[in-house]
């Protein structure tokens, strides 16, 4: 007899790749993302990070939110919503973008895929169906469908990612430029490949319908076997994205629609994402507020810091002086970067102090005793990890 599971309603959902992920999650290190069971890591977080930097690794991004936006008004509607000019995203191209409240506060970031003249896919970390519906107000000829459960997705990242995809039979994939979309036939199912990712390295994202997810996995892992292909989880993602200087919700920004306290959310300018705000395009949500902010100057700037010593500055305050009497900002994410061999951080700093001295007060624990150190910070122009292969076309084999 089948006894009904009394917890059925509260158990996390399983990704289309779950049967394979489960077998490889030797450490049973699970968390959750958007209702799906999701791996923190599989075998060893640091090892997985190095697979991303040195070889090839896969990240199950099926729990990401995906929406199809379709119809004659689709382009105009999206252009009204996001800060970038959607008209400039060509066919089979992807654009990274932001969307804000009328007050210019950041709701979320994500990518827009142009799949046709009148057809787009928007992907983002948190559900935004309600905001999309609101943004479509006044646009009659647009339909929005939630594809989140209808599309499985797998990021394939790392220096040998292209070599593995070629070995899987994706002929010509090496000619895809960054942010290109390509379509392939994989053992009878259609596979969409975008040269995108969240690691700052060479990498791709693969999109298939859930019923073909395991076929894709098996083909990929067969091709990747000699390359030591390995799944990675949230922990390695967070390391790689920080080295690449990418922002994360609940780290660098508090999603505006979930923010209680006044201005505890952020603006694109505060996050130093000026290049994503296009004032030359037609009106968009948050435009006037952002224009005002541009003129007055933002209250904070997100800076990349190189900090002396090796202790991570996680949660540290940043001061203008070594004595730590004048606070000028705070660290949003920090870690020791194994690839850059530097103690790195992203931090929100009051702009007028950006060119002066900066000191982080770092707290750390050693066998239950607590210590603190004041460490000098240097601000860096470029991301900590920017290998040439990430931009090279044709993509190299390693």
């Amino acid at each position: 007899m089948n006894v009904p599971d009394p917890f059925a309603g509260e158990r996390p959902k399983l990704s289309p790749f779950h049967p394979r992920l489960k077998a490889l999650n030797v450490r049973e290190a699970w968390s959750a993302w958007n209702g799906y069971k999701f791996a923190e890591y599989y075998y060893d977080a640091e090892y997985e990070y190095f697979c991303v930097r040195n070889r090839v690794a896969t990240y199950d991004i099926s729990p990401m939110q995906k929406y199809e936006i379709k119809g004659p008004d689709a382009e105009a509607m999206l252009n009204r919503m996001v800060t970038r000019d959607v008209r400039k995203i060509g066919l089979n191209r992807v654009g990274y973008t932001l969307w804000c409240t009328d007050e210019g506060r950041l709701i979320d970031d994500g990518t827009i895929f142009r799949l046709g003249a009148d057809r787009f896919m928007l992907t983002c970390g948190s559900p935004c169906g309600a905001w999309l519906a609101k943004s479509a107000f006044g646009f009659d000829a647009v339909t929005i469908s939630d594809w989140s459960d209808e599309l499985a997705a797998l990021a394939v990242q790392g220096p040998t990612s292209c070599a593995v995809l070629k070995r899987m039979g994706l002929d010509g994939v090496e000619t895809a430029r960054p942010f290109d979309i390509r379509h392939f036939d994989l053992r009878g199912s259609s596979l969409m490949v975008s040269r995108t990712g969240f690691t700052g390295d060479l990498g791709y994202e693969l999109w298939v319908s859930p019923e073909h997810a395991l076929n894709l996995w098996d083909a990929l892992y067969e091709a990747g076997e000699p390359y030591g292909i390995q799944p990675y989880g949230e922990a390695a993602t967070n390391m790689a994205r920080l080295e690449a200087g990418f922002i994360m919700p609940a780290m660098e920004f508090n999603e505006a629609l979930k923010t209680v306290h006044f201005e505890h959310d952020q603006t694109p300018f505060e996050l130093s994402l000026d290049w994503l705000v296009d004032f030359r395009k037609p009106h968009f949500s948050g435009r006037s507020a952002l224009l005002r902010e541009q003129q007055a100057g933002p209250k904070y700037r997100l800076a990349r810091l190189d900090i002396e010593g090796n202790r991570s500055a996680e949660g540290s305050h940043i001061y203008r002086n070594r004595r730590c009497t004048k606070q000028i900002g705070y660290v949003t994410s920090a870690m020791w970067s194994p690839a850059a061999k530097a103690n790195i951080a992203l931090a929100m700093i009051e702009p007028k102090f950006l060119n002066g001295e900066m000191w982080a007060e770092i707290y750390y624990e050693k066998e239950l005793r607590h210590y603190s150190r004041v460490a000098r910070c240097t601000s860096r122009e470029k991301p900590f990890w920017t290998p040439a292969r990430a931009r090279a076309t044709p993509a190299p084999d390693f």
Partner: protein
Amino acid sequence: MSVSSSPALDAIVIGAGHNGLTNAAYLAKAGLKVVVLEKNDYIGGAAVSRELHEGFTYSNCSYMCSMMRQAIHRDLNLSRHGLILVPYLGTVNSGDGDERLISYHDETAAYLELKRHSPHDADAMHRFQADLTRYSQLIRKTLLRTPPDPARLRPRDISELLFLAKQFWSMGEAQIYEYIRFFTMSAAEFLDDYFENDLIKAAMATPGIIGTALGVCSPGSAYVLLHHVMGDVDGNIGAWGLARGGMGAISNALAGAVREHGGEIRTQAGVRQVLVKNRRATGVVLDNGDQLSARIVVSNLDAKRTFTRIMDASDLPDGIREKADNFKIRGSSGKVNIALSALPKFTGVPDNPYVNRGGQAFSGSMETLERAYDCWKRGRWSDDPFVESVIPSAWDPTVAPPGQHWMSNFIQYCPPQLADGPWTAEKRDQFGQTVVNKIERYSPGFKDLILHMEVRTPHEIEQEIGLTEGNIFQGELTLDQLFFNRPFPGYGQYRMPVRNLYMCGSSTHPGGGVSATCGANAAREILLDLRRPNSVPEDDFFDE
């Protein structure tokens, strides 16, 4: 300094080993005009990677990295010069028979594995690790510092001695006694205090004999053990990693730093003689007869080679030649690099992508290790040697064609001179076969995978990179040759008995291994003498 004959060069560094390159990088960074002269047509010395079989990049000598100071990596921007160090997981230690001991990163997995062999030892491992970490922390603090001279006692020697005393006393009385004992103990005695299982002991003992002319039961091997576990990868003390692209990537990145700061590196420029006038080094004569002069000369060669091969006895103060002749630099290791058509499998090892990937130590037992040493003492290579194998290509996609592999095998013991006459190509190959036979025992079918082999005895190592007697550390790591005694008592601060002559190789403190420390410390002393601001970092770890 006489103005009339002021040389165009500030410094000549003899030898483009990784320490010579580190030294040159810091001198160039300080604005000096530097030339590095290397006898081979490639750079790197024992930190080198070469393609000897098409598609396969061997790390011909050193193969793993743990001692490289991250303060230098960071300071010289070696990541930007292409260096990335990748830690690797899980070494498998094999006993004489079917026993296998796997060292896992994951704490739970590691504990369960030890417990399978001995519940007692699984518990004891915690105390062992804590003690070893405490001992290594003290040494780690001295790595990027110039040792004090306890006889001269200038203000800086006194302050350096006080620094050490403070570190020492902070361990507490009981531990101070233990620590002093540690320096003269054998690895076997040290381990007996913790463990009962023989394979666990053998596995823990092998770092104590690597590169050493000592056996697991010889006094002094406990320190060598420490020398091999005091490194770290990204702060994980004792961890070992691979350089992406091979160990040569470290030297290449350092060469990048030398050039970035305007230094010059010349290959096929062997030095025949250091020129000395009025007890001052003034330059060098190359093998091709060319002469170069400079304000200072730095030797990356080992102490024996520096003072007996490229210097005239008459240029040296009394006693130095004897010291050089007596410098202990007995070679004891071989290296066999093998190109393979596929990944070998090892019996009794779980077949998963993390473990069965080539980190194999054929340790045998304490008895086997000691017997291996007995052969060396009698002028033979061990007939059942200790072999440490790594398959870098299972981790690094750049060093072998996809699906094919190269295997690095480090062998203990192999003597520099054979009792039955000189090394010949034939004997070298027999030594290679001994190693292959040993691996085949643990990996049936291994021989069929071999595409190419490079067999290196101490003889080849000396011929190619000039490590005297093939000693991998440029001089043995025994207390009489460590710290302020390295290379000779009274010369522990990188300045040599002739003015304007310095040493920067592993013959100096803190000794062998790919660490870049010797070169960096020597640069600090040179800059001090030349009255330049110091630009050489100390370790930037917050107190661990």
